[in-house]
């Protein structure tokens, strides 16, 4: 995949994907990166992911807490806040419409 275009797409959706993953349960940075990769978004570097998490924390869409790891130092866990739930629900609907439109246009191209 063209790396520039992928980066552009990610810039638009990364925060929403993180919110979506957190809706399934609390998680920490590295775990989120692995989940994103498993979901097909490709490898997400820490340098990209953590600033996004910080922004989400700043805008109150996620809350954080520290938890002792098993036998290791504490990890920073993220939890979706009520505001985050609301934003996720709204944007998910908007995305479905948007992506649907894009898909329809491109489907014509691939069909030909």
């Amino acid at each position, binding site marked *: 995949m063209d790396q520039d275009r992928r980066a552009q797409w990610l810039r638009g959706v990364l925060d929403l994907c993180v919110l979506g993953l957190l809706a399934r349960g609390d998680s920490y940075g590295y775990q989120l990166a692995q989940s994103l990769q498993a979901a097909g978004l490709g490898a997400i570097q820490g340098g990209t992911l953590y600033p996004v998490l910080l922004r989400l924390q700043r805008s109150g869409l996620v809350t954080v807490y520290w938890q002792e790891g098993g036998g290791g*130092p504490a*990890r920073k866990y993220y939890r979706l806040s009520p505001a985050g739930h609301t934003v996720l629900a709204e944007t998910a609907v908007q995305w479905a419409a948007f992506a649907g439109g894009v898909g329809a246009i491109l489907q014509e191209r691939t069909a030909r």
Partner: protein
Amino acid sequence: MRPEIWLAALSDELRRHGVGPDLAGHVVAEAAAHLRDSGEQPLRAFGAPAAYAAAVADSVGGPVAAARPAGPVRLRAVDIVKRYGRRPVLAGVSLTVRAGQVAAVVGANGSGKSTFLRICAGLAGADGGRVEVHGTIGYCPQAGGTADFLRADEHFALIGAGRGIRRGEALRAGAHAAAALDWRPGPQQSRHLSGGTRQKLNLVLAALGDPDVLLLDEPYQGFDRGTYLDFWHEVWRWRDEGRAVVVVTHLLNQLDRVDVVLDLSASTAGAAA
């Protein structure tokens, strides 16, 4: 790069970018955990420490400027007029700066920023107007102002003696101020220093002896990005200590954090905002 080294550098860069110590600690701890879990190389996972710190600082939105009551007037320039031959460079410029304030003097090339600063310092004559200074002045020119054949510590002793500071104390103060700009003065004569380092010397000399008013004429010539940030840290620190700082600059991105802006390019008659 080994993770410990990268993390230490990250800690430094976060401080430079104005990220508060608590948050910086969390960011470093989280990055350390990520590196441990993933086993990746820090440069690959996060990039250069400075770049990652900049991204964090951006996300966080910078340190919050606390509302501060302005102190007594330290510098008052009223209706400064300066002509070169028949060409007016400054036509009635005024500026008032109080203790604990930072003023930025901006304008296009040739709009008279340096001239105005020199007039405020008393290094150039004015054809009209007056300047009142409450306290002592420290001045840092864009270039020059150092003795080629003297070492940095000899400069500290010389300027310090003028301010009435004993030599040992002047040397300590100079070394301390230099460290804030990420510089450890060595035994070289100042003519052997690079341009940027010489400017660091210039800046340290201007602030030596804790003058009440600091007049800085784009003193960051030759500074790398990190030192440039350090410089502004020092400016905020001087402000917090209650000094009046005037900086001639044309780089706008720091302007939203200064207290007073004097724009000399708007018209030949500028007034402080």
